[in-house]
């Protein structure tokens, strides 16, 4: 990243924090004004709505242009490489634009540049099976370069993910996922607090850390081992080689211990990322357990798990709330300086998307059929057919 960009991003982080302090009532308008005057360098603000809009229309523009040129040239290859070479200039121009819409357009242009490069490489290899390695390698390198140059954290995640897909093509794919995932995580962890890095590079390191830890979990998970999930990613037939009993026992232990280790590490280091990854891994391990051990009917497990999650959240909140200073071990259930309105908007959207009832069927219900209204995933039977 350019030095000016890094400096602007740092100043923007201070301004954003100051606004959150103002929202929480810690500072007044005068103090906020003074801070904004001291740290004025322009840097695009994050905005989900504008970013989504920009991404949609950049995508339409690139795809329209691609299709137009490809039908003119009667070939995909030259057009792919042309766009892969041209779009980064757009990103370079727009990356530091103070407008979130312009900056998001730059990000989308960079994304499509990498996709075009991957299409070009695939076309050069005539889209055959051997092209996959080249495509994954090109994508991993290009996304990595994009994350380094422009500081898009999502690119770091894409780069790491494509890198792991590339490793999965090796005969020792699972072992590589385990070793490289652990090495990547170990390398990224110290970068999360390094002052010399730009804030977006630190976030990129967090994204790569997540990919590494996820790869390790995928490598050690018992279900993944038994069903050759990594080995069969690019081999479309099951080789049917069963792992040895000792390896299965080790995988079963790791499936149980790994999420707990992440949660403990997250609590000890007060890193929410590790805590969140640990919670997700724990949920996956419980699903794995359910696959192998029939503890109870599915409905009972769902109800018990749901009640347990609610109980856990209430218990932790109560425990923290009643602690001295409403905090314990450096954790609090209070909002601190987060934007609660944004969190609430996410909850509204999530509820509308997942728990809203299905529309009534146009035809009348047949007598005796259990039909109602309610969600597909939720709705608790107030919907669909039973």
């Amino acid at each position, binding site marked *: 990243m350019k030095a000016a960009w890094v400096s602007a991003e740092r100043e923007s982080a201070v301004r954003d924090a100051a606004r959150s*302090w103002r929202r929480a009532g*810690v500072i007044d308008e005068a*103090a906020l004004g003074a801070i904004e005057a*001291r740290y004025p360098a322009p840097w695009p603000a994050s*905005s989900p*709505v504008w970013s989504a809009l920009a991404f*949609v*229309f950049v995508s*339409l523009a690139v795809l329209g*242009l691609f299709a137009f040129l490809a039908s003119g040239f009667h070939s995909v290859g030259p057009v792919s490489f042309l766009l892969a070479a041209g779009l980064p200039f757009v990103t370079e121009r727009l990356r530091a634009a103070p*407008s*979130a*819409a312009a900056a998001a*357009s730059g990000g989308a242009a960079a994304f499509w540049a990498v996709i075009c490069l991957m299409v070009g490489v695939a076309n050069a290899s005539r889209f055959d099976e051997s092209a996959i390695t080249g495509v994954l390698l090109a994508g991993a390198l290009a996304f990595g370069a994009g994350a380094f140059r422009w500081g898009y954290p999502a690119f770091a995640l894409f780069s790491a993910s494509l890198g792991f897909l590339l490793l999965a093509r090796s005969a020792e794919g699972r072992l590589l996922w385990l070793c490289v995932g652990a090495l990547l995580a170990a390398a990224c962890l110290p970068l*999360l*607090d390094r*002052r010399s890095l730009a*804030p977006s590079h630190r976030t990129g390191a967090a994204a790569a850390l997540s990919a590494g830890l996820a790869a390790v979990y995928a490598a050690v998970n018992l279900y993944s081992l038994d069903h050759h999930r990594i080995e069969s990613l690019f081999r479309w037939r099951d080789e049917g080689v069963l792992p040895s009993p000792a390896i299965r026992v080790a995988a079963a232990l790791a499936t149980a211990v790994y999420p707990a280790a992440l949660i403990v590490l997250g609590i000890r280091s*007060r890193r929410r990322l590790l*805590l969140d990854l640990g919670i997700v891994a724990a949920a996956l391990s419980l699903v794995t357990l359910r696959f192998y051990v029939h503890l109870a009917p*599915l409905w*009972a*497990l*769902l109800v018990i*798990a*749901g009640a347990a*999650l*609610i109980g856990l*959240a*209430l218990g*932790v*909140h109560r425990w923290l709330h009643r602690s001295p200073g409403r905090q314990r071990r450096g*954790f*609090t*259930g209070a*909002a*601190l300086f*987060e934007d609660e309105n944004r*969190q*609430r908007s996410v*909850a*509204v959207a*999530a*509820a*509308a*998307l997942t*728990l*809203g*009832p299905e*529309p009534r069927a146009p035809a009348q219900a047949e007598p005796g059929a*259990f*039909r109602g*209204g*309610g969600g597909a*995933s*939720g*709705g*608790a*039977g107030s919907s669909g057919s*039973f």
Partner: protein
Amino acid sequence: MQPELVAAIEDLRRDGVLSDAQAGEVLPAARRELVSIRAELAALLYGGVLLAVSGVGLFLKVNHDRIGPTAIALLLLAAAAACFAFVFRRSPAFSWGAATSTHVAADYLLLLGVLLAGSDLAYLETRFRFLGSHWPYHLLVLSVIAFAAAYRFDSRVVLSLALSSFAAWRGLSTRFPFEPVLSGRWSDARINALFTGALFLAAAFVSVRARRKAHFEGVFAAFGWLLLFGGLLSGAFDPGDNWPLWAAAAGLGALGVLVFAYRARRPFDFAVAVVAAYLSVLRPLWLAVGKSEEGFFFLVAASSLAVLVLLVLSYRRMRAPA
């Protein structure tokens, strides 16, 4: 930890911009000595609600013939009542304004209570067929219950459930209102969509004008615009002869909303209107280029670039301080 923030706070304290007390309040979070897990608690609660209601749905499907209807109905009622009681005990008194502070779990347990009540209602209706062939009316009843709960306990999450239940009663989905446009069905639901969208928008207007839960306006308006444009655009893509009228109505409506959202600085409304306006001109563009694929691709690229320029220019004005 945010190293630049820690350094900035120390600089600001040294230069007197922040007092010692203010710096002491914000420094622990910047140094990661104090971490909020409120978002994690909310995610656990949401996941819990999702799993619990899915489990109850499955339970009713598997066991509704084995266990007596009275027992099931009472069980669901008791569970819903427990949720409502929890929320009632921890919520502030009713007010037409926004509640000042609510418990982190209030929204989610209220949501669970309403969903369990809805399940109970659907189950009873199925067993006893009170409504006969008018069974979709139980969605209206669910919507009314959710509305009452949303207003009493000041929950925008439950309000969204109320609106989606109402829309479902009218045969509409609020999950992806433009889906019928793309799939070419839904012409029978068009009038319902227009009517329901207009009703939600009217509710948004009244909320603000009457200052009755004015902060609910955003939820009403979001659902309203999505349904209204979903209805208009379904006409614009209809295979019938009247599609130009619908396309013109969608385009003009979107233009009106664009101007309104631009002036009022409302990004979500602006985004919906931009997408609706774009979709409304796609079919005329396709015809304008004589159904030539090459010409259409060029026009898609050119028009998308034009929209991007509009977005960049509009952003400056909409983000500027009022």
